[in-house]
């Protein structure tokens, strides 16, 4: 097993590398450090099965995908006619969103580029965002979080000892993108979500209750509960969006399009194209465009939770056939970040959050908690399909128009 992670103190309930009972999936590189994992008799994990079920089985032929994408782009352009923008595009400066921006230019789609500045952006991210907007001629909209408030929120998550320290950022990003779209009357949302590099949809009963990499960031109730318990600065400007507002937006105002799933997307080729066409610059790992993400994945997650997030990213590449398992295993032997960089990030992390050495140690040594130790609305999220079906059933008799009865609409 990888030496760099073996030094981690064993965590209760988790089977760490180097321990008895430790097991890795025979097809991907997911292992028993993930609490929701479970294996079939061939030793294949439920993440692999989830991919087969949700992605491979639903995969359509390239022609169908291309046709779908074309139709979506045409619709997007038609909806945007007479307006300033066709769609809204969240840009982090990372590979997926940058590549999507580049493709928008090729398709002739006019996105409003939205950036969520949580105060941790690196110079590289800024450089990439600037080159994209300047070279492609897109307008940029930035939402800057109020730092004292956001810092307090991030500290609450750290003090709570839960794994998803990034939840405040993720929550803010989608809330900010949705609201910006609404503000500018934009009807389409382009998202860089893709099965090639980040599909993760494990199946099985455990996956509804266990979230080893972090609980749903969309759960505002959970976010507020943690902040009430550990925070001190009131949340006045943070873009918080509850579940119902979100559903309303998705149903009513924002059509979502994930173009990267509808086209051949090869990450390595994408990086080369970005570098050649817009002077984009690459950085180490996935999501390393932000200092806190880098530090979270290279220090907090492995040392405190015994988790190596690269397993997820590498498995994604294995499932989509961009990487073989042996090279993924080889890569996992190396630490995610050079030790000097981790130390440098640690210093910055402490300074930026205003943490003393003692407080930092307290956070790192406190027992790892899960979302279940705090108030949450997981039950609501899990039963959402059931609720929406029930509500739809009740409302159907009151509905008018072609949507209520598609059979009548087309005589």
């Amino acid at each position, binding site marked *: 097993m990888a030496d760099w992670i073996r030094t981690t103190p064993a965590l209760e309930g988790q089977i760490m590398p180097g321990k008895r009972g430790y097991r890795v999936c025979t097809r991907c590189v997911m292992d028993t450090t993930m609490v929701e994992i479970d294996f079939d008799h061939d030793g294949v994990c439920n993440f692999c099965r989830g991919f087969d079920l949700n992605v491979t089985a639903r995969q359509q032929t390239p022609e169908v995908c291309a046709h779908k994408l074309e139709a979506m782009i045409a619709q997007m352009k038609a909806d945007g006619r007479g307006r300033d923008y066709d769609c809204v595009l969240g840009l982090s400066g990372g590979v997926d969103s940058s590549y999507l921006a580049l493709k928008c230019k090729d398709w002739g789609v006019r996105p409003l580029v939205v950036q969520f500045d949580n105060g941790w952006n690196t*110079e590289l991210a800024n450089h990439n965002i*600037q080159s994209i907007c300047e070279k492609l001629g897109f307008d940029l909209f*930035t939402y800057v*979080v109020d730092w*004292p408030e956001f810092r307090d929120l991030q500290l609450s998550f750290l003090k709570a000892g839960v794994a998803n320290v990034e939840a405040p950022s993720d929550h803010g990003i989608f809330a900010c993108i949705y609201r910006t779209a609404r503000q500018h009357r934009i009807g389409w949302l382009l998202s860089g979500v893709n099965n090639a590099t980040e599909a993760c949809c494990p199946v099985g009963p455990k996956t509804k209750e266990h979230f080893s990499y972090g609980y749903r960031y969309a759960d505002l109730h959970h976010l507020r509960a943690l902040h009430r318990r550990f925070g001190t600065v009131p949340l006045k400007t943070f873009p918080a969006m509850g579940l119902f507002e979100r559903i309303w937006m998705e149903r009513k105002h924002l059509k979502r399009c994930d173009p990267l799933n509808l086209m051949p997307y090869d990450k390595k080729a994408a990086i080369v194209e970005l570098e050649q066409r817009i002077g984009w610059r690459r950085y180490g790992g996935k999501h390393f465009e932000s200092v806190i993400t880098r530090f979270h994945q290279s220090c907090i997650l492995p040392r405190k939770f015994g988790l190596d997030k690269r397993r997820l990213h590498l498995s994604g590449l294995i499932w989509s056939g961009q990487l073989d398992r042996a090279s993924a295993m080889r890569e996992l032997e190396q630490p995610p970040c050079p030790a000097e960089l981790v130390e440098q990030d640690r210093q910055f992390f402490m300074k930026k959050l205003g943490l003393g050495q003692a407080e930092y140690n307290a956070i790192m040594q406190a027992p790892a908690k899960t979302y279940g130790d705090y108030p949450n609305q997981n039950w609501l999220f899990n039963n959402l399909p059931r609720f929406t079906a029930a509500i739809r059933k009740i409302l159907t008799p009151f509905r008018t128009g072609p949507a209520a009865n598609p059979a009548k609409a087309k005589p």
Partner: protein
Amino acid sequence: MNPPRVIPVLLLTDSGVVKSTRFKDRRYVGDPINALRVFNEKEVDEVVIVDIDAWKHRRGPNFERVAELAGECFMPLGYGGGVTTLDQIRTLFRCGVEKVLLNTALHSHPDLVSQAADIAGSQSIVACIDVKKNWLGRPRVCVSGGTIDTGLDPVEFAQQAESQGAGEIVLQSVDGDGTQGGYDLELIAKVTAAVNVPVVALGGAGNLTHMAAAVRAGAHAAAAGSFFVFHGKHRAVLITYPRIEEIRRTFAHG
């Protein structure tokens, strides 16, 4: 030959960095530490931080914060805001600040410049002169964050600051602040002709060409706020700094 210095100016408040337009309409830009970190990696010549809340609350500089920011800065740091005594200037230098900017104190404590220049040397005492056009369109020096019009002529005021021992003058146009429409070149030409110390132009830069024009008008260096923090028509916050080749090229050809 090295091109003239291109200096970002960050306006600090209690909650973080802001950017104003004509000294009003403050817009939140973010946290100073991340901004400085980005500037570090972009290899910026020099940075100026002005605490624009310091005079309002009648308090001196927040030394703890200044020390923290100076520690994060790889480049020379100039500090301004709320400086009225010699002790404060001494402490600021101990915090790691290279230059101290005096603005309101030039008017309210006229002896401070000469005393400070005696202990620290002229090169690190900077006179920051805010100039606003009055209703007749005549440029007048104003202090206290642009709220008090002293009625003094900027040229004479600059000469006076020079004679007291200020080693550099930051000439800020209040009317140009945040507009990104170009510097007040006439003012720059007048002041630079009258003094021998270097003059840094500030207020109105929207691109490098504006900066090159200021240098041709006589400025020794060009400083700006909005240019480095805003991007595009939505004034999206994005901390940037031009590449050295770009700076060279623009200043060479104008």
